[in-house]
């Protein structure tokens, strides 16, 4: 099966610092791929390159949908529109907006009424908004948050804020979902729930997932393949079994017992 996302010899320099150096990655449709490595290894930088926040200093980043897209040439909002959704390491919700509005906002790229309809609240607006609202509530229901739809996002407990970020990214109806440390700060119970949730949404929404995570139970538990970054370089790739026994990874990241 052809890959959905390819990074070919991608580099990113900040001044003299090589945050990412000659990285090659392939993500295939339907996979859950893990991205691990010590702090500062360049994992989030790679996410920012894929989503267009940064422009690569070298190499090619391509999304292979119906047409092939050069991600280096697209802006973040265009990339989001092409079907790459993401969450952030340090939660970035729209804090003053309600939980429901956070999700409804993400449907924006799919709305089918014009500015004119919006200003005059035409029947087409009313119909579209009602439909949007129904879809957003349905999505929140999957995340067990439908009862909190009308409170400001900032008032949610931490774990639910992380889940709302995932729900918001799903509203974009992405093909590829990038999760940046989804389990950070969660207790073991919440982490276990999150793992089940990720598996479930992957099947339900036909997703491909690339995730950064420090919690090895998550990475080893749900990822089919893992890439390991260290100082901006790819030092290993393979199945969880391969990675666990790779001496280089043990030295750089996992640690010896």
């Amino acid at each position, binding site marked *: 099966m052809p890959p959905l996302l390819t990074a070919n010899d991608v580099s990113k320099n900040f001044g003299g610092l090589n945050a990412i150096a000659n990285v090659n990655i392939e993500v295939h449709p339907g996979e859950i791929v893990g991205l691990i490595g010590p702090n500062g290894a360049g994992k989030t930088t790679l996410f920012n390159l894929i989503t267009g*926040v940064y422009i690569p200093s070298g190499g090619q980043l391509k999304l292979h949908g119906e047409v092939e897209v050069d991600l280096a040439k697209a802006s*973040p909002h265009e990339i989001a529109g092409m079907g790459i959704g993401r969450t952030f390491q340090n939660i*970035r919700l729209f804090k003053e907006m309600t939980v429901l509005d956070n999700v409804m*906002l993400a449907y*924006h790229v799919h709305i089918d009424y014009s500015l004119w309809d*919006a200003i005059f609240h035409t029947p087409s607006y009313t119909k579209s908004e009602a439909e949007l609202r129904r879809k957003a509530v349905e999505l929140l229901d999957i995340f067990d948050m439908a009862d909190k739809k009308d409170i400001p996002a900032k008032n949610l407990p931490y774990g639910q804020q992380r889940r709302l970020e995932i729900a918001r990214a799903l509203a974009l109806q992405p093909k590829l979902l990038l999760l940046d440390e989804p389990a950070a700060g969660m207790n073991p119970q919440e982490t276990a729930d999150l793992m089940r949730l990720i598996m479930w949404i992957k099947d339900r929404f036909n997703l491909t997932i690339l995730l950064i995570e420090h919690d090895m139970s998550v990475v080893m538990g749900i990822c089919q393949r893992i890439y390991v970054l260290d100082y901006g370089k790819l030092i290993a790739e393979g199945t969880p079994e391969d990675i666990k026994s790779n001496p280089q990874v043990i030295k750089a990241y996992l640690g010896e017992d």
Partner: protein
Amino acid sequence: MADKRHNLIRNIMTLAAIYAIIQLLISFDIIDQHLQLNLFLLCINIILAVSLNLITGFTGQFSLGHAGFMAIGAYVSAVMTLKLHLPFPLAIATSAVSAAIVGVLVGIPTLRLRGDYLAIATLGLSEIIRIIALNIDYIGGASGLADIPRYVNWPWIFAMTAGTIIIIYNFIHSSYGRACIAIREDDVAAESMGINIARYKILAFTIGAFFAGIAGSLYANYFYFLKPNAFGFMKSIDILVMVVFGGLGSITGSVVGAAALTLLSMVLQDLPTLRMILYALLLLVIMLYRPQGLLGNAELSWKLLKRGDKDATATNGK
């Protein structure tokens, strides 16, 4: 659905009632010339405050140039009616569109700036507009334009004020409005959700400028005469104060803010020095005790009032 229609009917009834009552009061001369002047000024200020709130309160773009857009509207309208003898409806439409066009042209380069930098750029813009007006003899230079035909009456003022509020309210409560608010909340996250930030900043700026142009046109064709210094830095600050006072991100807040500060100015008209002191004190008190403004980002509504009633009855019943 039925609930929505019910609300719509109630809102139309409320608007019609406000219109009719004030029209009656004007007809029977209970609202005299002096009061009417202040009432019209209040409505113009509401248009300015609500439209600035779209830019600053909802989209989060700190603009100090609103008086500049108002000036464009005022001068375009004055020239069209006074010099070219064109009908007022055409003049007001052209004013609004001219201000909006300047809004787009200025928005494209400046909206890359953030916070203080944007404030300085927009302030510079409105000063440029004022100084251009000051130096064109055709529009009267420093002495301004006089004898502008008075076309503005209560129906005009009412329609424009209500129209501004309704259109901006509708915009905010649509996907486009949510996009603007999302930019204010977190522009990086908004962009990653597919929002074209530059486009929506410019859109908000343009709609805001459009209504400021309308306010300018109403001003010119009510007050007979115009001079560039009416649209200086202090006018922009005045509008901003109304918005901050009422609450950034609340449309009804802007209405309340504009009304409160216009009335305060009216009451203290004969004591200009005291007026500025009170003005400053009021702002200090608001900033110290209610920095989010009177209404914060909540809206006054029938529902809220009803809930207030219920709460009151509940407490009374105990």
